[in-house]
């Protein structure tokens, strides 16, 4: 039998639609909010979504890689951008991009609000990697666009958690993002109390930023 250390040593099964959907659902936990909301007279949200709704400014809003179609009843001019083709099968209005560069090409300087919430395809990079992604998102933002970005500290390229102050670490990340042409308006960083549970808000991420694009 094959002994493996890494996914890359394995051959993924030919993916049929059902498997693709299953894999998508495993990775996109906020898809559950859409399943609950779509045939209901209620919209199910997390409190962080409600916070974002309260902050949105008028104009066009994009949400990328965050299963954001559950917000369609709450946001006037919403563009849902995803990277997995399977999304189109249950939410035909989604815009599917092969890579982040396409976002700026398809929607240059378009959005007044841009949301990325705990996007799995943004995980496992260091600060430079994260900044290279955000540079791509920025190409689709108008001047003064609000940029809501959240992540989990436990799914960042390994950093010395025993030696580096966690708050300083993620304040440092915000400062690097500011160098791309943003101003950090708000940030929230919450950590566990050590009772054995995960850090707070595994759904949205325990590190949350609100930036304004200053171009």
């Amino acid at each position, binding site marked *: *039998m*094959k*002994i*493996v*250390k*890494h*996914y*890359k*040593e*394995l*051959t*993924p*099964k030919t993916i049929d639609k059902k*498997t693709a959907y299953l*894999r998508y659902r*495993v990775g996109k*936990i*906020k898809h*559950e*909010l859409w399943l609950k*909301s779509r045939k*209901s*007279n*209620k*919209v*199910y*949200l*997390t*409190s962080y979504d409600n916070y974002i709704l*309260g902050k*949105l400014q008028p104009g066009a809003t994009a949400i990328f890689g965050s299963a954001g179609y559950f917000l369609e*009843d*709450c*946001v*006037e001019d919403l563009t849902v951008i995803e990277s997995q083709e399977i999304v189109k099968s249950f939410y035909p209005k989604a815009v599917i991009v092969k890579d982040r560069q396409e976002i700026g090409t398809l929607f240059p300087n378009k959005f007044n609000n841009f949301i990325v919430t705990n996007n799995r395809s943004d*995980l*496992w990079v260091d600060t430079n990697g994260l900044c290279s992604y955000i540079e791509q998102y920025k190409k689709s933002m108008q001047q003064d666009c609000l940029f809501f970005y959240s992540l989990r500290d*436990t*799914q960042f*390229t*390994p*950093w*010395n*958690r*025993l*030696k*580096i*102050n*966690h*708050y300083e670490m993620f304040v440092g990340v915000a400062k690097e993002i500011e160098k791309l042409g943003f101003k950090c308006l708000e940030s929230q960083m919450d*950590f*566990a109390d*050590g*009772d*054995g*549970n*995960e*850090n707070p808000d*595994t*759904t949205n991420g325990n590190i949350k930023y609100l930036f304004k694009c200053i171009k």
Partner: protein
Amino acid sequence: MVENLIKSKVILDKNLYKWHKNWDRLQKSFFKESYELHEKVKIEQFVSTNNFKNVFHVKDNYIDFNFPTVSSIDKADLILITDQKFSRTTCTQIIHNISDLLQKCPNLFLCLNRHYLNITGTEIDQSLPDDYEDAIQVWLKNSLNLPIKNYSERFIDDGQHFTWVIPDQKFFIQKK
């Protein structure tokens, strides 16, 4: 935001994330070939080579290890910890928990998930090495003052090393 929202909002306070009890088997269903995890085989070889016969396994995730386990810690000749929760208590509590377990059985194979350590962010030690994996080993050695053998692989985790099936930082700790 929509001016007149037709639907009423329901704010969910619970985390949507659900822990899969057999993440290993779920992942296996995504790939063509049958395989075993290198880290699982490594632990099995460790148990076999050292002739442990009664392993008490502390887990939060089913892993189909190929060695005999016991349900009572009192009958164990080795304690194996793969439970992710173990890494999510404070560093101080982790050391307490290790010491407590070693009172019950002198042999402990500990798997820690490096991404969870110092989960509260409040236990910084500037005297530790800059290299994170070295720092983990030095922290354990300094805190326990016991012989420790490091069985961890060196790699930069990109989330595809099965760390959430078997935590990546592995140490054999013996109470003499």
